[in-house]
């Protein structure tokens, strides 16, 4: 359709892409235009990955993406407008219709809704600038609100009230809140040791606290020995799938294809999870150093750090860390004297839980809809831009620092046989001191709750959500369960992303279950039938139950089973597990209110 961009929209896109060259579409017309060939298939393919950044550029500056702005982006990047529209509409935080310059996304997900999130939404109901939001990763400081402010940086409000939200929407300002970890100062900390203790903006401070020794050691050892140490460490991925990390690295390192890529998955969106945010906000240089080590070891030339849009503070601190590291030769053409190049680029999500799925994330970086790919082939064979790719989440990556410095064997001594190393858990809900806790693998669920100061609320446990909305609820008979991969497996549980969200016995569990059903319906990409329709039917079943009908368990089971068996990706596979566990614990039939 025909529509022209405004001057502001044009400027926003040009600020990202540079002004159009005279031979490009979108440039002011020149008398000799007809003699110049421009564009072509190749440029179209090569520039597609800039689509999401360009959409963000307009959305950030103007507050929404008009037809004129979309057309201008499409002209500049040679993307068909229908495809760009399909990509833009995939992301909850990009708006394709005009909206107020300031918009509040109020978390009413599992942790925030009972902590005041639902109340804020009720108080501000009907305002066009207030929307409910899935988990914002601030569960230890609930309730949380994410603000999109046209022309200014996005911002987050924690411990929110409806008055404060209204104030910010009316033009009030917000201050960044530095992350707090309850264990600060504990000398046994490995992953959290610098958080709250070392200035996250200063490379000097990071170096003074042991930073960049592991990279120096990596350069000394060389890729083969680093990978050998990682394998010896037994380190498994902390994102939920618990895949041995050394095997991924080795597969990519052994590939002869070029270029190869490294991705740090910082799209932490699993409800109840906030550990990666705390790391990125509190120790951003550690993330950059770990990525650099991974890049050198796997033979990748380029790393992408894909971070959810709802983490503006982390993004700013990571960009600062990248800039400082590059200025000191720790990134760039010759990383730390290794003779090898490595660069890191930050990419921002757009409000889509599914983009935490590794192949959806890759499609998102490539400028496509964040729809997961069928596997096999796996990312180590065919990953980002079709190349071999290592993808690890933030917590997994920062373990590399200690492994390189102390050796894989020493690392493997920590924890238990199958679950080596330290592990972060996100404690929130009805506990006295919510926050990210670091323990050696092997502590029980009960230990963790005690570490966080014990139960609050009624003082009696209702259930614990383990591993996120894609995880499951367990009762007090699981308090003695060791939180290890093997310990969880033995009890048909999962550690997932390390969520330990505690609910007391006064919790409205049917409401929590319904919210989880809503979450999966909202976040399903819509690609495959089992998940696209199954998440709707699941929500309808729970809604009918909320309306007073008994739950049709047989139908629920049929719906759950096809999602688990036949969906393309993990979202569909796990979309029913938490709700099923609520049913199994008998919590759906308990008092409603």
């Amino acid at each position, binding site marked *: *359709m025909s529509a022209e961009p405004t001057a502001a929209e044009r400027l926003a896109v040009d600020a990202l892409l540079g002004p159009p060259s005279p031979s490009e579409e979108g440039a002011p017309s020149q008398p000799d235009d007809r003699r110049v060939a421009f564009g072509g298939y190749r440029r179209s393919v090569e520039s597609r990955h800039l689509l999401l950044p360009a959409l963000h550029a307009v959305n950030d500056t103007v507050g929404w993406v008009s*037809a004129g702005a*979309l057309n201008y982006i499409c002209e500049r990047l040679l993307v*068909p*407008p*229908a*495809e*760009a*529209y*399909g990509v833009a*509409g*995939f*992301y*909850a935080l990009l*708006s*394709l*219709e005009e909206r107020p310059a300031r918009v509040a996304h109020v978390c009413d997900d599992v942790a925030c809704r009972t902590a005041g999130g639902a109340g804020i939404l009720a108080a501000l109901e009907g305002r066009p600038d207030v*929307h*409910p939001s*899935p988990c914002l990763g601030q569960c230890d400081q609930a309730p949380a609100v994410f603000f999109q402010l046209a022309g200014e940086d996005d911002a987050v409000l924690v411990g929110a009230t409806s008055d404060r939200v209204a104030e910010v929407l009316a033009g009030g300002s917000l201050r960044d809140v530095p992350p707090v970890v309850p264990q600060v100062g504990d000398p046994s900390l490995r992953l959290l040791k610098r958080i709250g203790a070392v200035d996250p903006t200063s490379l000097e401070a990071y170096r003074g606290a042991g930073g960049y020794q592991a990279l120096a050691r990596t350069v000394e050892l060389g890729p083969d020995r680093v990978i050998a140490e990682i394998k010896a460490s037994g380190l498994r991925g902390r994102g939920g799938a618990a895949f041995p990390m050394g095997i991924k690295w080795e597969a990519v390192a052994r590939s002869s294809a070029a270029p190869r890529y490294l991705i740090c998955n910082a799209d932490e969106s699993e409800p109840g999870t906030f550990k990666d945010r705390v790391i990125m906000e509190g120790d951003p240089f550690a993330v950059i150093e770990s990525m650099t080590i991974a890049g050198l070891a796997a033979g990748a030339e380029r790393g992408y750090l894909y971070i959810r849009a709802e983490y503006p503070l982390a993004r700013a601190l990571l960009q600062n860390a990248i800039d400082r590291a590059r200025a000191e030769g720790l990134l760039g053409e010759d990383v730390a004297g290794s003779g090898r190049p490595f660069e890191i680029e930050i990419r921002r999500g757009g*409000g*889509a839980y599914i983009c935490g799925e590794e192949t959806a994330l890759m499609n998102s970086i490539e400028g496509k*809809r964040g729809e997961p790919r*069928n596997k*096999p082939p796996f990312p180590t064979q065919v990953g980002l831009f079709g190349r071999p790719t290592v993808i690890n989440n933030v917590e997994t990556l920062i373990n590399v620092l200690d492994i390189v410095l102390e050796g894989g064997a020493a690392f493997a001594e920590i924890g238990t046989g199958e679950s080596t190393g330290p592990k972060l858990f996100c404690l929130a809900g009805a506990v006295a001191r919510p926050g990210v806790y670091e323990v050696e693998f092997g502590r029980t669920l009960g230990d963790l709750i005690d570490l966080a100061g014990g139960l609050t609320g009624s003082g009696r446990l209702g259930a614990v959500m383990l591993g996120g909305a894609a995880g499951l609820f367990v009762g007090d008979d699981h308090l003695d369960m060791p939180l290890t991969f093997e310990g969880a497996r033995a009890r048909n549980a999962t550690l997932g992303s390390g969520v330990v969200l505690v609910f007391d016995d006064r919790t409205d569990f049917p409401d929590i279950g319904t919210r989880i059903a*809503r979450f999966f*319906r*909202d*976040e*399903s*990409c*819509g*690609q*495959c*039938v*089992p998940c*696209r*329709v*199954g*998440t*709707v*039917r699941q*929500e*309808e*079943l729970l*809604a*009918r139950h*909320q*309306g007073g009908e008994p739950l049709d368990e047989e*139908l629920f089971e*049929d*719906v759950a*089973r*096809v999602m*688990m*068996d*036949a*969906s*393309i990706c993990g979202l569909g*596979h796990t979309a029913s597990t938490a709700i099923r566990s609520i049913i199994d614990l008998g919590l759906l039939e308990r008092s409603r209110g």
Partner: protein
Amino acid sequence: MAEVTLVVDGTTVTVPDGSTILDACRALDNDQPTLCYLDNLTPVNVCRVCVVEVEGNRTLVPSCSRPVEEGMEVDTDSDRVRHSRKMVYEFLASSVDMGLVDDDTVAWMDRYGCDPDRYGPPADPADDRDLRKAGHHRIGPGTAAETVQQPVKVDNELYVRDYSRCILCYKCVEACGEDAQNTFAIAVAGRGFDARISTEFDTGLTDSACVFCGNCIGVCPTGALMFRSEYELRLAGMWEEDGQTVTRTICSYCGVGCNLDLHVQDNRIVKVTSPMDHSVTSGHLCIKGRFGYEYVQELGDLAVTPIDDILRRARIDNRGRRRRPGPRG
């Protein structure tokens, strides 16, 4: 070429390396249901109706796109497979108008015992599906089963888009894009259950990049995309597929040699397709071959047929512009 041997439902079969499980099934005449798969398109494996159980795999796998491996053991009729197929059909039939799917699909649905009514009565049609935003659906009481029922899009004389019949198989997007036409006029928009096929900002086809090749109609398995002529005749209750003849001919517009199948009812061409297995077209045509048949029939010129009045609605009236529309390409 290297070969791979595998076992499908207890029968050993050897196929060329790079074949899919579906290829292996076909080599055994072991029929499998498909919806989003078509021989002339790249598999997108989204409908999941062709899933099979492969030993050693935690979840079921799509047979249309999973390459065979040496020693693979495939079960196409296990309890899990039957359950998933039944549910996929049920999910679709409970949310989409499947009234025009082919007989094979109906037979598969019967075989698996689909009961789409068990999700409750269908919800009222919606007129806002094109406006829905990712991550924000309306929360209902759950007493009616949500559907994709919505008004049909009639914005040109050549074809209509009835997305109440759309199962989101992606075939039209592929045919419009890299698999055939390279026009990219349509794409999937929205997310989740609100995902839909759309032009940019849901603009009408005449304002979009559409070149009216009609290749999207050619691949649509549910009748969501339909010739305007067929649509109008169906609306008037005058579409008589059983009484139609199909005549194969060669397109006269240019020298490529595309085969055309002329579907004729009451001595009138009512639709044009191309055989999927034709080496020149693979089933795809251009606007001239698919829609440019007006010059062979002057509606109302012969003894008046009852359908002529209807067919006039599906005709570009170019009398004012070109006195004698010629057969040149």
